[in-house]
């Protein structure tokens, strides 16, 4: 089976980011997506702490400790970008002004529920950040994650077993095996990577999938 590596997954997500889109990239693998959006597209990146028009990392020595992204990495601002407070930043999300948010996830359900902020391990102190606001707010929510856990347990399930981040919000799932859309009929496979077969992918999934049309 072909399993994309994280960079290849980010590259696949980047294909679905349209020119002119306002996009929020979650912490971790989603942040890599920006590296693969083709140069002929102009995409405006939002950072939840209060930035539109996030640019690349600064040159060494040029860092401003105030100018960081949601993942606490130093960033720059593109010409045309601007700053605002956190309440306005989350108003942008909740108000449906972002075209796309890309999040990682522990689990996604067949109805588009997402679990990405807590496991069932209560010893680990919880943290939620902006995940729940992004989940409900963006016009389209993309999830990018491995299709299974490292132990090959499915992460795409009838019902999430981890605490939910949002219910019925995921639009498209990009895994290392395939691309799936959440539809009213269920999870629709829209693309299989390499020679991966529908049966291969179904076998690693915890809910019934609809084959590519």
């Amino acid at each position: 089976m072909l399993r994309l590596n994280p960079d290849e997954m980010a590259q696949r997500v980047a294909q679905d980011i349209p020119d002119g889109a306002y996009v929020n990239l979650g912490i971790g693998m989603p942040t890599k997506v920006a590296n693969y959006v083709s140069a002929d597209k102009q995409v405006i990146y939002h950072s939840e702490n209060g930035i539109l028009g996030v640019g690349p990392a600064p040159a060494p020595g040029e860092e401003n400790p105030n100018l960081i992204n949601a993942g606490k990495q130093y960033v720059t601002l593109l010409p045309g970008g601007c700053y605002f407070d956190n309440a306005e930043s989350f108003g942008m999300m909740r108000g449906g002004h972002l075209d796309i948010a890309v999040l990682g996830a522990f689990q996604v359900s067949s109805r588009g529920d997402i679990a990405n902020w807590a496991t069932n391990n209560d010893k680990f102190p919880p943290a939620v950040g902006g995940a729940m606001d992004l989940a409900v707010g963006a016009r389209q929510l993309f999830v990018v994650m491995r299709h299974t856990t490292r132990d090959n347990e499915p992460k795409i399930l009838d019902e999430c077993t981890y605490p939910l981040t949002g219910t019925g919000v995921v639009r498209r799932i990009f895994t290392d095996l395939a691309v799936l859309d959440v539809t009213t009929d269920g999870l629709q496979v829209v693309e299989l990577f390499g020679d991966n077969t529908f049966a291969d992918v179904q076998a690693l999934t915890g809910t019934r999938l609809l084959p590519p049309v």
Partner: protein
Amino acid sequence: MIDKQVKAAEDAVADIPDGATIMIGGFGSSGIPLQLIEALRCHGASDLTVISNNAGVAEEGIASLLRDGLVKKIVCSFPRSAGSIWFEKRFEEGSVELELVPQGTLSERIRIAGAGIGGFLTPTGYGTRLAEGKETRIIDGKGYVLEMPLHADFALVRAEYADPWGNLTYNTAGRNFNPMMAAAAKTTIAEVGAVVDIGELHPEHVITPGIFVDRVVAEEKCDVAA
């Protein structure tokens, strides 16, 4: 003449009592009033409730208040970061209570406190564990959670420039929670990079109007031996 300047950070925080609820601005390393927090730590008020997006990392900022055992409760969206050792330790030993709030709900609860609003309905968190025990309702088929204002006795904020009336501007993404917190506390203390004369801040560029700010402390530019 109105002049809200206070010379030393220690004087600005001297009346913060034990048991106070304190908002502290900042997001990650950005826009944190580090000198005011250090003054508060030295002042030693305890049993504090701290409202802030993060819980500090290493030995700095809010982490130092947690380390010194001054914090009873923290209201926070993202307390756990790489290096948030003191939060993790105090949480595991059960000596600090955590109220976890989604980030946008946190900033809006702070905003409405400053704006005299009694509550708001947000779709964020609906159907999740963080809405448990809260009033909910469905409007046009969409679920909402009723969230209440977060008020504070004191706000410690960080800005770039102030004038004597307390008007504030910020440095890039250092703005984050600071403007909402300035409006939501009974007493707001601003640590700033520099104080400029009245009229030097352009009236279209002021982000926090001085009406929300009670005390202004200019940053100490060089380290002073304790």
